[in-house]
């Protein structure tokens, strides 16, 4: 087979300690070409309706896309999908790094894990040999030690290891996974699902080559050369390499949309203390990469000063800098490097972790929790040591950390009173560090995304506001309009819809958000040509967007089946209230404009505006009419 895959899925039943091989054909793969589409297909067809996230029946799918492991920049991503313990709906978390490509080279498109091991185990996959191994000696250990131990006991330093940490072992509802200690499937609590299965790690070693799987490996190789050269010649990819995401801090602050003090404010008074220039001077030790990627947007940091920060776990990205920083009222860069290291060491999602601490700080300042609940910790905004202590308590579920490990929505229900107004979440997942009051389609994205608030499900309005910008011009062939960032309208919904489909396709095919236009440097025709070269299929940009749309519809159908309706597609009340300070002081999202835009969006998507269920006609158009039958089953 030469259409970008071996057509093999590894099935693992941890309860019965059995494994088996499943194969699929090309016709199936053209409809579900890996990643989110393949994983959502499996979850929707096989997870019993109503099975809870920590039930052994929950299905953990680790899936590559058709392009994962292709030797060109940003083709590195794999997804982890299961029913989410944070949202009780469709859970998903993508990551780059090295594990996905290694799994591809081992000959597997996906690993599907069910059941629960009696004792901690890890999975060892070497090409087509698979072994379930004892991991009792690894349980409770730091990821770096686990990685070193596994490589030593299997006598192979080149093994790539995907693993959970202490957060996942302790079922923290926003626990994630890492590969190579620096790349994270952080969101929606996939690490807790893996922990509930007593599965600490999946170690992989593969020895085949992507060139053997691709229909036209020469074209793929040529694209690799072209893109590697272009990184420095294109402003967006140059910026990602030069500064990485920490470079976003000052621009967002100037725009008045740097989430500060639990989204009360959009500008932080001590922003100079966490700007890129300081980061580069005080923290940075190296720029790092994912598999075969010339962008090199990852940062490595080390601190040996007021805090000791290991260089093993990667440097803070923008999201971590803000969620644990200004959003908690904190501007101490070294402390933020430490907080980021702790989240990465315990394998907690640094977005949800920071947002949950900010929530707790606001509850404390309003007297909803007191010193008795915090164990004597003065949990006010700006208390750096309190923030660091909270990360430890959450990971270990000690003291108030046991409550906060439930995430903001559950914690607010338990605390009661006005706490729910301080929980900045959608469907139970905490907001990333982008304020929709300054870029309204991000509000549509947060509200409608099946996995809860997510900032990487479509392009952000700001990149598309100016028709002369490099971002807009790149994505223009998709049929979008240049619209003001704060406009919230039917035409904004339309442009959002197009870009959601385009970006969703990245999550299916295995491309990074920092690859294709409008966020970065790979052009529309190059994405299409890469898919053609990998598969031999005569795809078009329209088909790429249908691939993305189909995956979204599968995820939506999963949520609808589990009882989600339009009532879950809403924003936190605070976003309908004015920003307190900064360049957009007074800005808010009008409820009327938001509801009208959401109505338009459901129409565009072919979904019922009340139940949000995809119509049979839409599902037929996408070639997945079986989903309509499934939704009609009682």
């Amino acid at each position: 087979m030469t259409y970008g895959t071996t057509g093999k899925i590894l099935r693992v039943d941890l309860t019965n300690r059995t494994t088996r091989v499943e194969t699929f054909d090309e016709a199936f793969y053209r409809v579900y070409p890996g990643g989110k589409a393949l994983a959502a297909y499996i979850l929707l067809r096989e997870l019993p309706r109503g099975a809870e996230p920590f039930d052994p029946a929950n299905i953990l799918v680790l899936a590559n896309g058709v392009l994962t492991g292709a030797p060109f920049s940003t083709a590195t991503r794999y997804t982890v999908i299961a029913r989410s313990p944070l949202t009780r709906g469709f859970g998903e978390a993508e990551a780059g790094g090295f594990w996905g490509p290694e799994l591809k080279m081992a000959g597997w498109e996906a690993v599907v894990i069910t059941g629960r091991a009696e004792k901690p185990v890890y999975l060892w996959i070497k090409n087509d040999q698979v072994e379930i191994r004892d991991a009792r000696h690894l349980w409770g250990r730091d990821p770096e030690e686990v990685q070193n131990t596994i490589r030593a006991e299997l006598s192979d330093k080149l093994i790539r290891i995907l693993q959970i940490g202490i957060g996942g072992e302790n079922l923290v509802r926003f626990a994630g996974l890492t590969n190579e200690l620096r790349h994270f499937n952080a969101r929606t609590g996939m690490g807790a699902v893996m922990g509930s299965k007593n599965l600490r790690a999946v170690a992989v070693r593969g020895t085949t080559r992507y060139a053997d799987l691709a229909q036209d490996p020469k074209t793929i190789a040529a694209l690799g050369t072209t893109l590697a050269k272009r990184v420095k010649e294109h402003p967006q990819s140059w910026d990602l390499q030069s500064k990485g995401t920490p470079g976003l801090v000052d621009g967002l602050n100037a725009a008045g949309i740097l989430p500060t003090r639990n989204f009360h404010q959009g500008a932080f008074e001590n922003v100079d203390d966490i700007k890129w220039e300081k980061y580069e001077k005080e923290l940075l030790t190296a720029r790092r990469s994912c598999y075969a990627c010339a962008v090199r947007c990852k940062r490595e940091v080390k601190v040996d000063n007021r805090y000791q920060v290991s260089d093993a776990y990667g440097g803070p990205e923008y999201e971590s800098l803000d969620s644990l920083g200004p959003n908690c009222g904190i501007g101490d860069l070294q402390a933020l490097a430490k907080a980021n290291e702790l989240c990465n060491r315990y394998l907690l999602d640094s977005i949800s972790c920071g947002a949950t601490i900010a929530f707790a700080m606001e509850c404390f300042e309003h007297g909803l929790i007191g010193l008795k609940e915090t164990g004597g910790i003065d949990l006010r905004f700006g208390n750096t040591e309190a923030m660091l202590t909270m990360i430890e308590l959450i990971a270990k579920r000690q003291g108030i950390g046991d409550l906060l490990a439930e995430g903001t929505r559950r914690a607010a229900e338990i605390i009661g009173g006005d706490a729910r107004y301080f929980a900045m979440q959608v469907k139970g997942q905490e907001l990333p560090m982008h304020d929709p009051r300054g870029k309204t389609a991000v509000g549509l994205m947060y509200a409608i995304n099946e996995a809860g608030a997510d900032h990487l499900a479509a392009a952000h309005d700001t990149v598309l506001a100016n028709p002369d910008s490099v971002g807009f011009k790149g994505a223009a062939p998709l049929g979008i309009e240049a619209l003001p960032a704060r406009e919230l309208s039917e035409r904004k919904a339309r442009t959002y819809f197009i870009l959601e489909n385009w970006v969703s396709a990245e999550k299916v095919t295995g491309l990074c958000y920092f690859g294709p236009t409008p966020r970065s440097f790979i052009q529309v025709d190059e994405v299409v040509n890469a898919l053609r070269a990998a598969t031999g299929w005569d795809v078009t940009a329209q088909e790429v967007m249908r691939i993305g749309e189909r995956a979204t519809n599968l995820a939506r159908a999963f949520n609808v089946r589990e009882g989600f309706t339009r009532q879950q597609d809403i924003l936190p009340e605070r976003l309908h209230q004015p920003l307190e300070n900064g360049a957009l002081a007074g800005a808010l999202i009008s409820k009327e404009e938001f509801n009208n835009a959401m109505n338009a969006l459901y129409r565009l998507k072919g979904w019922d505006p009340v139940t949000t269920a995809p119509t049979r006609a839409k599902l037929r158009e996408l070639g997945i009419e079986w989903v309509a039958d499934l939704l009609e089953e009682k």
Partner: protein
Amino acid sequence: MRLHLGGHLAWYESQKRSRVEISVPRSTLLIDVLRELVIPPGEIAIAVVNGAAVDLQTARVSDADRVELFPPVGGGM
């Protein structure tokens, strides 16, 4: 004039610098300064002079000013 080029705007500067100090005639149009530096206005989302947001097309600057320019900012990680 002290000029800060945020995000990918520094890519357009001849030496890829994000901080530049330049001399300008008194009360020069900012847009003319950018034309001189070959920085495309289409990439500028926010212009700030001495801490206050300004209109890129009409703002005037002098040697004593501190100017910050930022491109549109997309998603992080």
